[in-house]
């Protein structure tokens, strides 16, 4: 499981950094490195681009895992260069950005779009398989989540747009319900599809402010 990111267009980053003359750049050695969006080489490319755009890069680092508390120590160790900057460009996912802001008074600007929590299904290809809805239904759907893999999040089987195993939105998108159907057929559990899945409780999902959990004991 990784947080999948993509680079924002440089124009958008430039616009966010307008008025920020001196920039400190932070990359991440985990997910963003793996996605080729915030590893050492991307950070060095960004440094070059920023300098070409007339900015001064006061320093850079690739922290091991930007969302980890060790990021605080890394910022402290590099305090001199960080302090000299007007702002920090975070080449990390949004978890990283929101970790960095805890440990600095400098404005922090995201360089990446955080796309989804993804699974690498074939080398170099990542797919979203879980939307973290808080109310798992995989027992009924042969371990394949229709909420995230069906373009309409349908719960009672494929819509009329499922053709040859593909979703109506694109030939590159497999129909989640065809996948579920095939797997249930192989498991001898097609009868599960005859039940009407009732209306969901979405309150466990992201419709009610930040979800929080306290581990007790």
């Amino acid at each position, binding site marked *: 499981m990784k947080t999948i990111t993509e680079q924002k267009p440089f124009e958008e980053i430039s616009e966010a950094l307008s008025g920020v003359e001196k920039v400190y750049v932070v990359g991440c050695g985990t997910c963003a490195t793996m996605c080729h969006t915030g590893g050492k080489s991307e950070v060095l490319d960004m440094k070059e681009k920023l300098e070409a755009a007339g900015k001064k890069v006061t320093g850079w680092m690739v922290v091991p895992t930007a969302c980890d508390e060790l990021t605080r120590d890394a910022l402290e160790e590099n305090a001199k260069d960080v302090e000299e900057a007007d702002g920090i460009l975070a080449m990390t996912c949004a978890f990283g950005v929101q970790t960095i802001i805890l440990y600095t008074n400098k404005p922090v600007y995201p360089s990446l779009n955080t796309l989804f929590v993804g699974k690498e299904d074939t080398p170099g290809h990542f797919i979203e398989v879980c939307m973290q809805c808080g109310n798992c239904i995989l027992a009924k759907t042969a371990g394949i989540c229709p909420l995230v893999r069906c373009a309409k999040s349908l719960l009672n089987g494929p819509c009329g747009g499922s*053709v040859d195993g593909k979703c109506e939105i694109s030939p590159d998108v497999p129909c989640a319900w065809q996948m579920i159907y095939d797997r249930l057929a192989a498991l001898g559990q097609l009868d599960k599809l005859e039940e009407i899945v009732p*209306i969901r409780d979405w309150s466990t999902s992201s419709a009610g402010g930040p979800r929080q959990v306290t581990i007790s004991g």
Partner: protein
Amino acid sequence: MKAGTNLEKVLVSGMFAVTAEAGPPKGTSAAVMQRKAELLRHCCDATNVTDNQTAIVRMSSLAGCVLLKQQGVDPVMQIVCRDRNRIAIQSDVLGAIALGIGNILCLSGDHQMFGNHPTAKNVFDIDSIQLIQALKAMRDEKKFICGDDISGEVPLFIGAAANPYADPFEFRVTRLAKKVKAGADFIQTQAVYDVAKFAKWMEMVTDQGLDKQTHILAGVIPIRSAGMARYMRDYVSGVSVPDEVVTRMEQAKDAKEEGAGVAIELIEQLKEIPGIHGVHIMAVGWEDIVPEIVKQAGLLPRPVL
């Protein structure tokens, strides 16, 4: 009678029903709907008003239904699950009933990427089968989804769609059975061109006795041109247009006449399929042709019940 609409009366009487479709305008003109009502009033038993079909913003189905109703047409309000959550949908249902609309067709809805607002956020709080179930509970138990009581009567004749041409083929009968179990009083199918495949599906449907538990209307889309035939064959998901129909349209001297002819022949064939209770003609902007098709198919005059 569940709602006592004209559509329900015709279907319950056992007569072969004819429904049509009137797409609302991409604008504010009531006259557009009134003109469609004029065209369709005498040649069909009820008329569907689409709900932002293909995810293109149009006048609301509710408003379109009211405009048809004022012209003496029995409207079928379509509701898609794409744009509204359970709160908005139930609210619209109450309003529709208050305005005299009794037929509601429940649909998932075309994905927003096909429409003119592809950057919109979709809703899909509930799906089409859950919507059928919710409407049934509103009618039979007078309860909202949350369990609260509804004040007043809730007369509804509940419809759903079925597409025998989508995959997995074997599941299509199961899906229909789910819709019937959820409470679908009538079914309007995707457009039929491949009659053999449709007949095979209907055989599976009748084997399960589903045609006795709901009223099935077969969908017909008259084709205006060879280009439209090709487009529907190649680009419309879940529609199956055999090459012979495309060839026929390409070779026709008068494409419109040919297209109407194809539709009439299809209706003649569909009438003979056991378990079919009517046809649903979706003219998609070519409503002018509907009276002629219905007449040539021997389905006029429509019953007055």
